[in-house]
């Protein structure tokens, strides 16, 4: 293991870990935003990532998706070293991410938002054809699923925040993800929609077998949905465990409540 740290440490659980980070470090000038973080998400899991503001959660997301180049360490996707891969490569490999500040294509219609998010029809010739029947059917299905079919011709940016959040979720599903990275799925939405969002995420995880890694500040939400949770503070991983373990972890309580 000492002679070949990469393959050595990855070998133990290579078959089940969809995402694995090893010693991932990201610095911005003098600030170490993510500090030697080891974590893994196994196939079929829902893993939560929690931590106070500025803990490095979103930065870790960006390191995994290839939006940032990591300064140290490695990222593995399904056992393959993908450190330094572009966002495009990662996305084509089935890793789809949602953003903290809900991002939809504001001036396009709801339906177009979905059609363009498909990973089908992406070969050169298909670019110059109208979307295939298969893609349209899938878009229709998803519109009905998130209950936005009445708004298909609406400019996406004119909908309410909650509706945009649902659309962004449907867009992520449209890309047929293998792994879904969600940045605060319950952020800024009302209590009744939080219940709905919980159902959607569970459904996606069980019915469509999508592995999910999510960042969340709403503790009730993350405790209810996650199989396992990682806690970050000041860029370092301070705890890992089941929701119950995390809830009783002194370091997590310290980090959240500011106890010294």
């Amino acid at each position: 293991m000492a002679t070949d740290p990469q393959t050595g440490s990855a070998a133990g659980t290579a078959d089940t870990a969809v995402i694995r980070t090893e010693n991932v470090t990201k610095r911005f000038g003098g600030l170490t935003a993510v500090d030697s973080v080891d974590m893994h998400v196994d196939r079929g899991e829902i893993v939560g990532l929690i931590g106070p503001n500025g803990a490095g959660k979103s930065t870790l997301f960006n390191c995994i998706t290839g939006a940032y180049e990591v300064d140290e360490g490695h990222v593995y996707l399904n056992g393959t070293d993908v450190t330094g891969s572009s966002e495009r490569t990662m996305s084509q490999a089935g890793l789809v991410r949602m953003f903290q500040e809900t991002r939809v294509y504001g001036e396009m219609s709801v339906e177009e938002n979905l059609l363009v998010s498909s990973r089908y029809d992406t070969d050169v010739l298909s670019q110059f054809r109208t979307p295939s029947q298969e893609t349209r059917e899938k878009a229709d299905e998803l519109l009905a699923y998130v209950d936005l079919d009445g708004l298909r011709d609406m400019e996406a940016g004119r909908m309410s925040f909650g509706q945009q959040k649902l659309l962004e979720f449907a867009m992520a599903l449209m890309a047929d993800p293998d792994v879904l990275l969600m940045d605060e799925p319950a952020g800024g939405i009302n209590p009744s929609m939080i219940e709905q969002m919980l159902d959607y995420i569970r459904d996606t995880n069980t019915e469509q077998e999508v592995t999910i890694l999510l960042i969340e500040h709403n503790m009730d939400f993350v405790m209810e949905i996650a199989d396992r949770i990682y806690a970050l503070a000041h860029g370092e991983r301070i705890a890992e465990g089941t929701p119950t373990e995390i809830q009783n972890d002194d370091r997590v309580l310290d980090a959240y409540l500011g106890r010294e």
Partner: protein
Amino acid sequence: MSTRDLRTRLQTVRAYLGTYGWLALGGAILVLVGLQWLGPLSTSRASLLFFAVGLFLVVWNLLLLRATGVLEFAHDHAWTLLAVFAVGAVAVQAAGLLNSYWSTVALQMFMFGVLALSWDLIGGQTGYPSFGNMAFFGIGGYTAAVLFKNYGVALPLTLVVAAVMALVFAAIIGVIVLRLRGGYFAIATLGVLLVAIQVARNLSITGGTDGIILLDVPDQALIYYGMLAVLVTEIAVVYYLSTTRFGYVLNTIRDDERKATAMGINTTYYKTAAWGLSALFTGLVGAMWAPYNTFIDPATAFNTAWNVEFIVMAFIGGTGTVIGPVLGAFGIRSLVFQIDSLFTGWQLVVLGVVVIVTVIGLPEGLVGQLKQRASALKYYEYGGGAAGGAEAADADATEGGND
């Protein structure tokens, strides 16, 4: 719930009242002008202007009231409408219904239609506000002029070479400037245009500041057909692309390029393609303009006033739509010609007023505003949303009260 419903209803009513109000005002103007024409004052130049304003108010507000239907009709019959336009435009010229003046007006309308639509492809659809599109026009013009004059190449062939030259130039420049966004991109492209002017002034092959005089050029009717053909082809191409994944991707780049990249789209490829297509059509009409004008020099080939004019046209018609920029070009060009003959020397003042009124009253442009109205009406039918209902209603209320 009921409070929100009531609020939404009230705002819908307000929006409609606004539309009916402007409709009534337009109608009143038309009646007054009509009465005046019947009376002793007869037709004055000012009354023509009032008549035009009244007519616009009536037509525009009627369109607003039927926004959904109008857009659906245009969408369902797009190809038929385009064919009718093409056949009609050929017919009036072939039948000799256009005198030389109107033929010139129409020819320039077609040309500016192409320029505005080409600009919109990169500026409106893709969200990269180019201020250098006239560079492609000039390159097309000079390529055609030099090949025709110095090498005796047949004009149709010069068109092909000119379009390819513009395309290649765009691809090379694009690799550099398409890394920039927003204002930085605008400034960089303006720089490209300014450099092009200086280069044309200093090269001997372009005739320097003296330019190139072209003789034995085809007659105006032929160039009229040529411009028309390019316009119809471009409308067809852009309209078709707007229904394909390629067209959607251009819009994602405009709306959120960061998200598009994260979703796995190679945005560089798409925006370079859009920029190239824009250059190709612009270069093509540039190559027709040179022989039509029988002369090309740096000031006409890289006309910086036109460079702004076709952007204004796209905005007035509605950026990011297919027909908007073309209608904007038709409207502004014919307006400029009319004002020039009625109130010589005032065309820029009127143009300025039109631009200001449009920017304040119709920030999305004519076609854009129609689309917004239709979209807002759909939202009411659906029942609105928690936060979006009030916003959409507010937006609609302002839409109703404009002209």
